[in-house]
């Protein structure tokens, strides 16, 4: 169920990128798309009656666990997403300081 929600979230983020014209709204919909993507990645690795991949000692390595690799991928992807968002926000601050507007169509008119 969450996998379907994740895919719809990804599509919603895509829709947001095409509909919005405000720079901050574009960054917000980029973040929405990425959250949808991360939920999808984690839903790939979910095992129905598995438990979190934390092993308390060597002998209970035999239990049913959830797939750890998608979690490692999402850990890296979240921090990459923060890097891009911070850069995008710095650019939007720079754009607002020089052009005093955040609407893409006005900006293209000025340029």
């Amino acid at each position, binding site marked *: 169920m969450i996998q379907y929600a994740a895919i719809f979230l990804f599509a919603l983020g895509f829709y947001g990128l095409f509909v919005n014209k405000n*720079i901050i709204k574009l960054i917000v919909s*980029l973040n929405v798309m990425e959250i949808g*993507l991360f939920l999808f990645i984690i839903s790939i690795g979910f095992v129905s009656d598995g438990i979190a991949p934390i092993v308390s000692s060597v002998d209970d390595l035999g239990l049913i666990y959830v797939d750890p690799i998608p979690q490692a991928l999402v850990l890296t992807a979240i921090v990459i997403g923060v890097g891009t968002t911070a850069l995008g926000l710095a650019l939007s601050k720079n754009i607002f300081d020089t052009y005093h507007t955040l609407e893409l169509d006005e900006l293209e008119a000025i*340029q």
Partner: protein
Amino acid sequence: MNIILLIVIPLLVAFLSILVKKYQMMLLIFVALFNVIILFFLKQGMIFVGGYEDELTHNLLGITLFLDVYAVIALWVINGLILVIALLNIKSYQTYGTILLLAMAGLNGLVLANDLFNLFVFIEISGIAAYLITTSNKKPVSTFKYLLYGSIGSSLFLFGIVILYAMFGTLNIVIMIREIEALNDYRQLILPFLMMFIGLGVEAKLLPFNHWVKGVLGTSNSLSGPMIASVYMAATTFVFGRLITNLFQFEGSLLLVVTILLTVGILVGDLMAFSSTKVREILLFSSIAQSSIIVLLFVNGLVIWAVYLIIANALSKTVMFLVINHSVQKTNDDEVESLKGLFSHNLLVGTTFTIATLSLMGLPLFIGFIIKLNYLTMFAQQNQFIVMIVILLASLIEGIYLVRLLIKLWYPGDQKVEVKYHLAFKVVCVVIALSLLVFGTYSNPLNKLDHNIDEISEVVIHG
């Protein structure tokens, strides 16, 4: 000499260079020289990061890097051009040393990666370094658009990777190729392939998402122009080629969709170049058309000629963008009219620019001609006549607008244009132009390179 040094040493020096802000360009030159020297001693094969090679089932637990002839050529192109561009821009762009170091680490990693998610991480590193290089154009809106399209592209690429992982359980490209070949039912894999194709297509300036190119390269300068137009394009097309020839299986309707996308891209690129009057716009639209031709060659399996076309294109585009951006910076006017008679004063730079353009067009006596002749004959053998007609038409349009550009730049107009090119500029342009000329006439070193590129797939398959 482990191939990992090519990625790790630039990273280490970049981390340390933020403490010594003044010498970052010097550090960049040293590391670029170090990389070019290391390239002589690299031995080909696969290395395991972290040493996790599971002898029992012989499946690769950790991340692996893979070096073959294809990657050696790519590394030569990338590190050589970054060294050249860094040398030329040492005085004008002092603060971009660390960013270029990270771009070099990202691009080397891009070409060497043999793990899909590792490839995604290096796409992000080189992507973010590219966004920062374009901030030197002082146009934040076009940089923001580039960042947006780049993020959309890499998210789509990640989506494709995850679907492949869910189906095959591994992220290692070599194992993935074996499993896909065992499956060999391309209809199952249309969704991930299409997503990864469009995801990487954003970076390689292909049609659906290349709206950012006009803003970024249209206002480029002597650092961001050559970097984005030749170094980044060469690296992304090399990686694209590796994925297309080995991983993706293009048949039936998928092949049709992709071919249509590319042929439309070629025509649109050339027509836009034909119709624009700004010098830099002509160059950037021709590079869009070139990258679509290169990807078309990869899709149809002509790997050798695609590799030569990437090298020739990277070299000639570096010369063209360096010369034009330098002159536009001095006269800060983009129109072709204002640059009339630019070469009548500095003949040397003018001749190198002409050699680069003629080789791009594919006139005899230059490397461009040999490449174009061979891949057109290959297309004829595969009797794909529509593609041949499109490429011939595109090169005709290309010939017209490039010759028109050359005439304008050679014959002086009314007002006098005086642009000085310092000595290092001339030396670099002459060296690149000579290499285009030499490979044009005397091309048997390239044929030697031929046969060992052929077995990319064999080497990759047996691992």
